[in-house]
């Protein structure tokens, strides 16, 4: 039995040490965020954050994750709130909101990885240029070709986050996101 910390909760899992985290998340724990796309670290479908860094769960054995904080799409709001010092956890993050507002979606299957990666990007760089967005997101594929709209959604989310930070500087960030 291995103990993992997933979305702030410590969980004992049955799977053997060599099991890639993806199968623990999607099969044993039945989370719907991280999902199989290639199993080869090529597409970004299975992405999660490990100590805040985007990681491919399909090739990461759980043995290597014992003392790490794992965040999945299910925990992304809480993670975002903690990183930006929000007083309460919003229902959705600015990245998720912007994707919906821009109608930046077709089948949406790639969205787990897109949201995880874009969140990582915006927490490190609140105002990325077009080139920085493309380069950060380049390891995430979308077969439906929604790239242009995802780029505009990330820009929109970045403006929301900057505004939130500004008003947090003024007083409190509550209610902004």
């Amino acid at each position: 039995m291995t103990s993992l910390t997933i979305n702030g909760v410590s969980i004992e899992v049955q799977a053997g040490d060599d099991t890639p985290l993806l199968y623990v998340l999607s099969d044993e724990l039945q989370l719907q965020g991280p999902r199989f796309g290639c199993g080869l670290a090529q597409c970004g479908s299975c992405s999660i954050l490990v100590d805040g860094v985007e990681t491919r769960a399909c090739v990461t054995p759980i043995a290597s994750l014992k003392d790490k904080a794992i965040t999945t799409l299910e925990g992304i709001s809480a993670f975002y709130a903690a990183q930006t010092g929000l007083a309460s956890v919003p229902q959705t993050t600015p990245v998720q909101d912007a994707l919906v507002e821009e109608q930046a979606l077709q089948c949406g299957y790639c969205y787990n990885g897109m949201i995880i990666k874009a969140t990582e990007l915006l927490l490190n760089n609140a105002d990325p240029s077009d080139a920085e967005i493309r380069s950060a997101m380049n390891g995430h594929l979308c077969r439906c070709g929604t790239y242009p709209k995802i780029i505009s959604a990330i820009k929109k989310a970045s403006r929301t986050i900057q505004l939130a930070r500004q008003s947090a500087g003024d007083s409190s960030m509550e209610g902004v996101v």
Partner: protein
Amino acid sequence: MKKILTSVPLKRRSLLKAGGALIINFNFQKASFGQNQSLLAGPPDPEQIDSWIAIHQDNSATVFIGFAELGQGCSTALLQVAAEELDLSMTQVSTIGLDTHITPNQGGTYSSSAMRVGGPQIQRAAAEARQALLQMAATQLQVEADSLQVENGIISSTRNNALSTSYGELIGNRQFNLAFTGNAPVKSPDDYKLVGTPYPRNDFPLKAKGIYRYIQHVRLPNMLHGRIVRPRGQGAYKDGVQVTGINEDSIVSIPGARVLRQNNFVGVVAQTEWDAVKAAQQLEVSWEQPGSLPGNESLFERMEKGMTNERVAVEEGDVSAFNTAFARSEFKAHGPYQAHVPFAPNCAVADVSQNSALVMCSSQDIYNTRTSIANLLGMDTEQVRVQFHDGAGTFGHSCWDDVAQAAALMSSMAGQPVRVQFMRWDEHGWDTYGPAHIGKTRISADSNGKLVSYEYEGWQHHWSLIETSEQTAKGTPAAEWPPFPAQQINPRTLGGMYDIPNRYLLNHHVPGLDYLKGAWLRSPVDLSFSFVSEQAIDDLAFQLGMDPWQFRQQNISEYHWLGVLNAAAEAANWQSRPAAENLSNASIVRGRGIGVGTHLASYGGAVAEIEVNKRSGEVKVLHLYGAIDAGLVVNTSNVENQIIGQLVQTASRMLLEEVTFNKTNVTSLDWASYPILRFEQCPEITPIIVQRLNEAPSGAGEEVMAAAAAAIANAFFDATGKRMTMYPFTPERVRETLAG
């Protein structure tokens, strides 16, 4: 048929009792279906209004839609059509998932059929339901039906506000019992409130939160995980898979893992998914691989030299006019096999018992899949129930039937429900690919630049009929579909937009059994057709010293075609000049190109701006402008997304995508060996909708790709003065062309 009629109302009633409560977006089926034994097989009678629409007590409506949601947003758009005719708000309408026991058989979801076929059907059913409701209201309120108005399902008298009732009050939880005649008048487009607006898709919020259940998330109690075991990469279709030995001991280290074999069909099951994945990789199987493929290098030679079946698709006038025409262009070019490769490999969950089978999968045509599964399991079709759950965007016939069959076979052998997902190499390696193509054309024009003659010969094979799971398990020999014209050269894309007095189109059907499996891939083979045809058209303009937009304009009189051509050119701020006028010695050069084309309906026009690095051979698509005329566009935001997706995919297919194979098997088995376009390579995209409020919807899922492919090819000529004769434009191919 009798049985169906008596059985369906039962289910209707239980749905109606649920009111709107159970029906949350289209996740309804995922929450509530098991094997409901009281329910007999569909399809419900399409001639009954109750098969299409149910009104609930709370004034909401369930619309039974027979089309698959493939990520194109058709369920939202079809609900818009229904809500419009019923005068309901979008929050009052919902639909449920496709199910052979419940939803009508509207045929498969392909060739952009959802809006083209489904739109008018749903519209007429909704109009007829509304008419019946108004008549009931008139009787109840004792007024004339035409003095009534409806808003959000509340019916009131235009003369006396106090006189009112509602849909829910009139019929909620009861049936119409009304024949669907299609005779009720539909709304005039001038009165549209919802149709033609960018109503947000109903699935987005759930998908962004990660709580939407795709087929890959579906689980059944007591379910095993399964994987198929096949050679890495298919060989020739006729060879299928020949197992020569299996060492079952090779997986004993995995507790509970089992081999399931039926003839040459091999699968493994295990309790956990990772154990199934490991077992499939660890199982030692030997195969006979006859090596009867041509390999990429000899593909076109075999296609052209082998025996073919000829069909004249179009013969008008006399194309010998070519011989004496003022300007003449002869051009031959090739298109590769390309793969569907949905972002997530296909998946299915099956629960097969002695007398019944439930199969949940992403089939684009559940009724067809039901027949094939029944056949495979030796059951009557009524014993098989197929439910659609969407997966990742599939763009045609990817492995959804194959995986559904595999799950059904494995569940019947295991005696338990089994979930099968293909691995990445299964999906890439065992796809039914978009077929390769050879096109040869001769086109001529007079000295005024009017087209005189058009000839085209095309070589390709048809779609594969038998799935590999069936082929291996039952020994069913490989077979192609009968020669439907839709699987052959396409007269609409091949010169159909131009006014040409003399035209001759000849299809060479290449018998497909010695090749890879094939099937329709978004805008099937049209990219190859327009790659050949529109380059030759462009060449004539060049020979005549004419601007390629003007040359096309003066040869097109049909207003839809002119509309998309002009819309794309105007959006791109096209300045008139002949192509390849600004050739330079710089190593990085730019060009622009234009093209028109489509699939079976609708109209597409496109402009491309590209950059070519002559030294490295690298091509970048900088900007694509794509215009679609799809008649009435119900949801403009959906269609805009469709155009964006088509243009990005076209750039991907023209620059990067090619199935590779040697004599024994396919070798492009993942995203490294079969790359697709990435963020950094993605062009700027300008989608343009030519809206026709007074025309019927004609489909917008694939109709601008042929035009965009041609525009990219013509932009290459504009930049370099050379014509590419094969895509994708890989650096090696580009360097070769530039050196030649």
